[in-house]
């Protein structure tokens, strides 16, 4: 009986560690996304990117909360394993089992069938595929690259949208994260529209001011002025403070 309990506790501990890795990965991704949205917000000065930053901050707060609970439960489970190993288990430790049993039930129900399980604080609601981990690492590395035009920013935001849409599917509606990636996805789509428009302005300006387009310059003088007024500076890396 005792060995079965220890095995179950070890399984919970393993899943908690796995979840902790994922929370850290999500936290790192949110910070990369926040950095990009901060730069876009400084450039476009639009409401969408401002609200998106607020949403990312909310997500970071939720992740931190989940990480704290995860570490708390991990500590409890490791202590319980150590106590059970020594056969020192007594009735006074029973109250620790109430939440641990919720974790256990969620793991047994969801993880084994590979579906999103019942959301429990401190635990990722499902097993996350390796491909998603690679996608996150890839986008984090690409976030280190400085972008020089709006076309590259369009591609960067599209990458973020694809990844956030994948993350949306991970969290069931009752999970504390559920609505946040959804709203971030919607806001990123709106930001993408602004960036696509900036890309169009940039491209049009380049063609209109290109000297090889002979007599076009005089006719399009007013258009060049309108474009220059509407064209926002390309987001550059700055101090978030």
């Amino acid at each position: 009986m005792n060995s079965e309990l220890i095995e179950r506790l070890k399984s919970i501990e393993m899943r908690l560690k796995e979840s902790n890795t994922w929370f850290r990965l999500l936290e790192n991704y949110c910070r990369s996304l926040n950095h990009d949205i901060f730069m876009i917000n400084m450039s476009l000065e639009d409401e969408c990117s401002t609200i998106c930053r607020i949403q990312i901050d909310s997500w970071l707060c939720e992740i931190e909360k989940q990480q704290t609970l995860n570490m708390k439960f991990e500590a409890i489970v490791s202590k319980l394993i150590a106590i059970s190993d020594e056969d020192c288990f007594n009735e006074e430790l029973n109250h620790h089992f109430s939440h641990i049993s919720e974790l256990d039930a969620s793991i047994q129900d969801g993880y084994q069938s590979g579906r999103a399980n019942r959301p429990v604080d401190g635990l990722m609601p499902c097993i996350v595929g390796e491909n998603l981990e690679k996608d996150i690492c890839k986008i984090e590395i690409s976030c280190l690259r400085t972008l020089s035009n709006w076309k590259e920013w369009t591609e960067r935001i599209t990458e973020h949208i694809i990844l956030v849409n994948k993350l949306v599917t991970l969290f069931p509606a009752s999970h504390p994260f559920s609505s946040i990636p959804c709203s971030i996805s919607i806001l990123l789509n709106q930001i993408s529209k602004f960036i696509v428009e900036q890309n169009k302005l940039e491209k049009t300006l380049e063609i209109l001011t290109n000297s090889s387009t002979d007599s076009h310059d005089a006719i399009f003088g007013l258009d060049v002025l309108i474009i220059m007024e509407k064209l926002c500076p390309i987001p550059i890396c700055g101090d978030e403070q």
Partner: protein
Amino acid sequence: MLDYNASKSQLLQMKQAHLEVCQFLGEIDSDFHENAAKTLATRIENLVIEPIDIALKIIDVIEMIGDGQIPSVISLRWNQQILQALNNGGVKIEF
């Protein structure tokens, strides 16, 4: 959505027709009609052919940029200019 290819061929046809009229007016050499004909030819060049030329140049730039890649602030204005050239080149003009 304006069909730029159809507009371009229509504008080129209109331009050709008006150029032929201007050429005919330019060839008039009778003392009585010469001045009036030249004035009319200049008016056609300024009021009809020039807007058609501008519209054709706009379509050239649109082709260069790519259809659907025109910023919305510019697209509306350019479409209006093309439509105006199409209308003025195809109807009677009051002098």
